[in-house]
């Protein structure tokens, strides 16, 4: 009996499962930082177990955490929100993403999505019965989403515009003028913006992140998600949030209660410590990612590989078209033959079968070793052509 070929999210999890079976695997696929959660956050969680384990938490989260989130989005994103009515705590960025899509899209509604994009948006959209309308971006322009292309994709069924900046997997950052143009389009065409800011602290060189909700006229039509997973190395705690206008957030809150109820109270207390405590560890990790990004790009340059310059994020989207093989097959062979996990572009977009997403979330010696092994695998593939 032939085995059904996994696609999208399922393909990634299939690769993760195989990667676990190799003792010497180097993970350059999953977006899980190698750093453990900073000690002061773990200590706060321990304190919460002793003193707050039974705290009542409403579905929207502890008020103290929502206040910390409101302060954070004001300080970092320049978005003003009322912690009482305009913040909902979620089980990680992933649940926030799912809730945002459900909050806005109904069956048949279209969402404009610059491609490539994080595969779970398509899964969530499918659950909601919505329709993805893709806007292509290109490596030659570092995967810039062109507002003119977005405008051209809008139909009378369009209800939402997804803006992920920095983008996952292409790592492009929407420039301030482009973001203003995107908002202008959303206003003129009456679209709701779903903004994914999860990599907002990881922007490189002279690139600048701007949240659409921070622009005049942006907040009332924008839901913005973020999470502690990437910046604080807290992937296992499952803690994220959505902020937006009170009327829309009332709907998000009901959806949150319907899907899972509140977030784990211990994670929430850890989140308060993360957002209100010392930020040295965040800067230390961000600096490490800057170094690693440079290291990976230098190695790819030395290998003669093309890529869109990662303006932000924690990964590189590299062109493996020279192998002449589908990225799913390339990722599978790199994993099986060389025990290196990288994500195939085909899992993010059907049009990106000649790309791999490589994260730089491992120590530098591991990254060097991983890239060397990838090179061996790809040379083997080319020799077979």
């Amino acid at each position, binding site marked *: 009996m032939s085995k059904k070929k996994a696609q999208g999210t399922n393909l990634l999890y299939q690769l993760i499962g195989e990667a676990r079976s190799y003792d010497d695997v180097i993970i350059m696929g999953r977006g899980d930082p190698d750093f453990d959660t900073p000690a002061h956050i773990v200590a706060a969680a321990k304190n919460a177990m002793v003193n707050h384990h039974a705290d009542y938490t409403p579905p929207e989260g502890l008020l103290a955490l929502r206040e910390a989130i409101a302060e954070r989005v004001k300080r970092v994103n320049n978005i003003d929100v009322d912690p009482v009515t305009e913040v909902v705590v979620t089980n990680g960025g992933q649940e926030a993403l799912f809730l945002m899509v459900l909050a806005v899209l109904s069956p048949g509604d279209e969402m404009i999505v610059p491609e490539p994009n994080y595969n779970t948006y398509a899964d969530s959209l499918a659950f909601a019965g919505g329709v993805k309308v893709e806007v292509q971006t290109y490596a030659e322009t570092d995967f810039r989403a062109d507002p003119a292309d977005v405008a051209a994709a809008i139909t009378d069924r369009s209800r939402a515009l997804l803006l992920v900046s920095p983008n996952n997997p292409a790592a492009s950052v929407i420039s301030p003028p482009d973001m203003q143009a995107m908002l202008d389009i959303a206003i003129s065409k009456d679209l709701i913006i779903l903004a994914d800011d999860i990599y907002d602290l990881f922007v490189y060189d002279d690139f600048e992140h701007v949240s659409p909700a921070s622009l005049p006229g942006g907040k009332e039509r924008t839901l913005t998600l973020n999470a502690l997973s990437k910046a604080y190395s807290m992937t296992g705690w499952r803690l994220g949030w959505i902020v937006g206008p009170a*009327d829309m957030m009332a709907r998000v809150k009901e959806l949150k209660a319907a899907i899972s109820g509140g977030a784990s109270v211990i994670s929430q207390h850890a989140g308060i410590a993360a957002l209100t405590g010392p930020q040295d560890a965040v800067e230390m990790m961000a600096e490490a990612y800057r170094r690693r990004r440079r290291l990976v790009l230098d190695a790819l340059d030395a290998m003669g590989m093309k890529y869109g310059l990662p303006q932000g994020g924690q990964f590189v989207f590299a062109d493996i078209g020279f192998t002449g093989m589908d990225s799913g097959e390339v990722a599978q062979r790199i994993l099986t033959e060389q025990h290196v996990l990288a994500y195939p572009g085909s899992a993010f977009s059907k049009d990106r079968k000649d790309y791999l997403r490589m994260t730089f979330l491992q120590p530098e010696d591991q990254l060097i070793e991983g890239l060397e092994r990838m090179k061996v695998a790809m040379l083997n593939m080319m020799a077979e052509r």
Partner: protein
Amino acid sequence: MASQTKAEILARHDANAALKTPLPGQITRHAKDLGADGVFSPLDERIIAAASEALEAGQTHYVDVPGIEPLREAIADYLNTSFSAPCQSGNIIVTAGLQESRFLTIQKIGENFDSIGIPAVAHPGLQKALGVRARNVVSLAVDPHRGYLPALDAIADAVAGGCRLLYLESPSRLSGAAYTSDEVAAIGQLLGESGASAIWDQGLAPWVEGGCRSLASTEESPAQVTAIGEAFPGMGLASWFIGYIAAPDDQIPAMQSQKQIMAICTSTAAQYAALEASSLFPAAHPPRLAQLKRLKSYIAESARDLNLDAIAGDALNIIALQASGGAAAKLRAAGFDCADGADFGAPAVIRLNVNTTTAEALQALR
């Protein structure tokens, strides 16, 4: 300029009564909060130590979507031991609480069926989960004299009418009444004969003295039942939100895939805490149950003295009362919270948590 798109979204939301169904408290907020169906308990120091040790050892990263393997094994063992439910760790998905279990099972198993039969009186979280994405619902008439459980005839009628997926609670989340062993066997036989499936909320079963039979244990339909519940209740983890789904092999992939889409995994700290709780539960639970039995007996006696009509229920952690309209408001005026039967579909009922202030609350209903 006002957004017409937003206005349309909000209008649809306003029209979605199911999604806006009020929920009783999931967790006890204060001493006079009698609305939750969990049991307030201190957290054992060994649980704190185990969870802290895991975190300090670097268990702060993503884990497997269905949960860490030792916890899945512990839950499977618990279900085998307590419910004679034949399952392995591969049949278990660890969830971020009972509501996530409800949502995943209703929405994903429900995709395979034209309709879902649900009790006319059930936990409002059920309606809420259905409100996210509407499904065809067949209402199962309940018997007020059997603790508002759906009558077997009503279940049979729904199945005869073509409904092939049922959602049932035993014990009832409102009254605590549980199906008898014979009734469960009869339901199992009906499912087996008709090829129907069931989602079986057995979350309150640990609070029944001597336990109660799970539909997942019936020999007639072992492959057709998905059981859900809270993991190791009463161990002080209520606000950590940790639940389970125990499903047949062929049901797991779709729910696991949806779980990864929704949340990637359940909080690692909560999972390691629950793992430690699993080893303490067998010794810690019986004395807690004995204490609840004494308390509930005293509360029931107080209710009789006050001419209040308590509904017979097997679960020792809750007590439901027939009450005229406004009973919930009377309790609130006296500083007590309760679960309002109206939110469950039974307007003339209130449900109270069994604890040391419950008898005092009854005075407000005189």
